[in-house]
């Protein structure tokens, strides 16, 4: 399992009710269900991935976060997870609002466009950056709204969203992000993981 998922799982207490938005093949869901006794639901747009989740015995709804989150009542989950997908929505702000309406807390992870390898790629090669977390070409990437850890940090602050914990992930190491080390983390982290609440 990806290190990112381990970090996410560590943020969630046992026996909670959790919605994984864009749950893909259900790897994280299955881990949470088996190891933390989480009452877990998934929302996934791809029919193939939905079938994979069903084959794992997971409760998943085929749907689109931009349209289908609205059917869930306010604060109906303890946590809502959105892993590396926020940048792919037409309207990320609306999705973020929906996550925080449906979940008491949300865990959002973002691929960091401020990561030094990304900056170097663009600076020296002069082409759109391709890294482990950003593997696609400019013409076939699902990502519409790339941002940096710093961008996201400022964005949630400006929306009066409370940040409980923000973590920078680089390979196997995770570390706390705060106001004072934001610049450094923004340079050296591949991924940002935010536990937030509205």
């Amino acid at each position: 399992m990806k290190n990112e998922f381990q970090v996410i799982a560590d943020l969630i207490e046992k026996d909670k009710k959790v919605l994984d938005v864009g749950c893909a093949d259900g790897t994280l869901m299955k881990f949470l269900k088996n190891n933390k006794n989480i009452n877990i639901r998934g929302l996934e747009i791809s029919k193939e991935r939905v079938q994979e989740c069903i084959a794992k015995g997971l409760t998943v709804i085929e749907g689109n976060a931009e349209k289908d989150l609205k059917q869930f009542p306010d604060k109906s989950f303890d946590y809502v997870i959105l892993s590396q997908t926020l940048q792919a929505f037409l309207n990320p702000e609306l999705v973020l609002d929906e996550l925080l309406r449906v979940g008491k807390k949300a865990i959002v992870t973002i691929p960091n466009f401020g990561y030094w390898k990304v900056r170097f790629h663009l600076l020296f090669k002069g082409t759109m950056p391709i890294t482990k977390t950003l593997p696609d070409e400019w013409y076939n990437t699902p990502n519409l709204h790339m941002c940096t850890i710093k961008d996201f940090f400022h964005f949630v602050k400006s929306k009066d969203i409370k940040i409980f914990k923000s973590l920078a992930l680089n390979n196997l190491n995770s570390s706390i992000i705060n106001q004072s080390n934001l610049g450094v983390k923004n340079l050296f982290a591949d991924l940002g993981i935010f536990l937030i609440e509205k």
Partner: protein
Amino acid sequence: MNTEKNIKTLIVKKPLKLDCGKSIKNFPVAYETYGSLNSKKDNAILVFHALTGDQFLTGINPVTNKEGWWSYAVGPDKAIDTNKYFVICSNVIGGCMGSYGPSHKDPDQKIFGTNFPVITINDMVNAQYNLLDHFGIDKLFSITGGSMGGMQVLQFISNFPDKSKTVIPIATTSSHSAQNIAFNELGRQAITADSNWKDGNYTSNDTNPGKGLAVARMAAHITYLSKKGLQEKFGRKLQEREDLKFGFDADFQIESYLRYQGSVFVDRFDANSYLYITRAMDYFDLAKQFNGNLSEAFKNTNAKFFIISFTSDWLYPTQENKDIVIALNSIGADVGFVEIESDKGHDSFLLDVPDFLSALKNFLDKSYEEINYEK
């Protein structure tokens, strides 16, 4: 039509109050079972059939000598695995495969015809509920069915919220739409316009409204298929001829196909039953039973739901299935949903659609494993 010898029936002695206000008692519910009930009695699945289905799910139907209507899904090692599960299916009341219906005789030994009480989906499931007592089953493992079978699934879990652990409505709706009612009315009008219908008394008049019933079936059959599916299968291909004949014979293969579907249908189905069952579907509006709030229908159940729709089903489209998902999510119910890609229209649930069959199998088998593990 019915060869009684091959039909198992449960006689329901206690009175059943119908939605129309009348009561029936000492009436037959015809059923069939597949697989065997285990000692814990926790492996039973109740399947509800659609408009023209019956209790004979799989293998050779002993009355029609044709394959059972859900042979692709039910059987040893199939999606609904009869090596594992005890599968029960019964003919709906109002039907014509042994359960109490308009071809039965009234207490004065006269064939009911249109004097049979108008029945509803609610009446159907209340009648079938008696099978649980009959088999000594406290709680079913699952209930499932497509189309009108799905409506019965929804009504059953609403009426008996703690009587099934899992619930699988397929290609269905919680409320019959104007379009659904319109197509059913077309079928009913075709039957009643046949001069052999005789106000429903065709048996005593020794006539048969076969032409009307065949037209009803032909019209309905079109609604079960998709435009793409029809085009790919038939296109404008001609029926055993080189060129158009400039007449009204079946020049096109699609015409011949529909005529055939109509003609084989009248051999196995009763015209009055067709009127009664389509009426029951039209009257179905589960939300209305709960003052317009569909979620209320499910608020007392802890069952695990799995809802399945098909991309090319325009009779019970994905959105109508999703409305059920939305109603369940709004009360925090345990609900999964998948829309299966298929060109085969509403009929997809009856056909060899591998993605559908594997989803159904995986859901059932994983749920059964989990329930047993939790114990």
